[in-house]
């Protein structure tokens, strides 16, 4: 086990308090990419004691047709339900490592003219960053270069429901 449920909850409550202080009077909207960040979002939302919204989006690859030259490109499988223009947006990430995903999200969301854009991540691997200029304002835990399951993190869609965060040992995915 890497982090117990209690350790996770303590840190999430701290993040929630900090966000509530920073966004007092601004009613931010938490935007979570599906699916791994859902458990974190549920706890974080309940730890933020100011009015705020939540919304979801989902990223997916696509098998491009011959018309597009067979080039895969990141795209939104599910877009946000609400407009974010003039809203204070906080992207809720499960983990930030290279920053490529968050970079794409920030570029996409910035085009919609939010009042501000920040990110909170449960786990961070800053030493693996390829994109540095990211608005990661809140970090739960800086973690080693391991794969995790539990607390929303999955292995082939399993183990998301585990209360604690576990390290996945072995490159084959064995625990």
């Amino acid at each position, binding site marked *: 086990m890497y982090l117990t449920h209690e350790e996770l909850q303590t840190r999430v409550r701290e993040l929630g308090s900090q966000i509530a202080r920073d966004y007092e009077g601004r009613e931010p909207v938490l935007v979570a990419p599906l699916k791994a960040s859902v458990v974190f979002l549920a706890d974080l939302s309940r730890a933020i004691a100011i009015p705020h919204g939540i919304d979801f989006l989902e990223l997916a690859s696509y098998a491009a047709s011959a018309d597009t030259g067979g080039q895969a490109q990141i795209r939104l499988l599910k877009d946000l339900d609400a407009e974010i223009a003039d809203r204070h947006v906080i992207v809720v990430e499960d983990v930030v490592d290279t920053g490529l*995903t968050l970079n794409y999200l920030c570029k996409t969301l910035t085009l919609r003219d939010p009042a501000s854009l920040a990110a909170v991540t449960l786990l961070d691997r800053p030493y693996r960053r390829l994109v540095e200029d990211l608005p990661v304002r809140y970090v739960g835990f800086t973690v080693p270069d391991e794969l995790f399951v539990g607390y929303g993190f999955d292995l082939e869609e399993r183990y998301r429901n585990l209360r604690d965060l576990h390290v996945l040992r072995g490159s084959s995915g064995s625990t």
Partner: protein
Amino acid sequence: MECAKVLDYYGVPWEYEPTTFVLERDDEGRVIEAFKPDFYLPEQDLYVEVTVMKQSLVTRKNRKLRKLRERYPDVRVKLFYKRDIERLAERYRLQLAS
């Protein structure tokens, strides 16, 4: 190359091996050691060298990176492991050529 495919997937502009950095010259000024990082990401102003996890290779590349940083302190360069690329690809089920 897998890395190029992943960068394209995320919409990150890249250039392939655009720069050769001279690391060592002999007394006559001839280049005896140079380093050409695999990618340059202009938006990040970052060079990326991709490597497999084989320890001897990582050690050799790390040594070159250290030398490069000493001689070109303003150049930003990172070593990126092939397994990281595979992990990224797996996250979004991007099919990579083996």
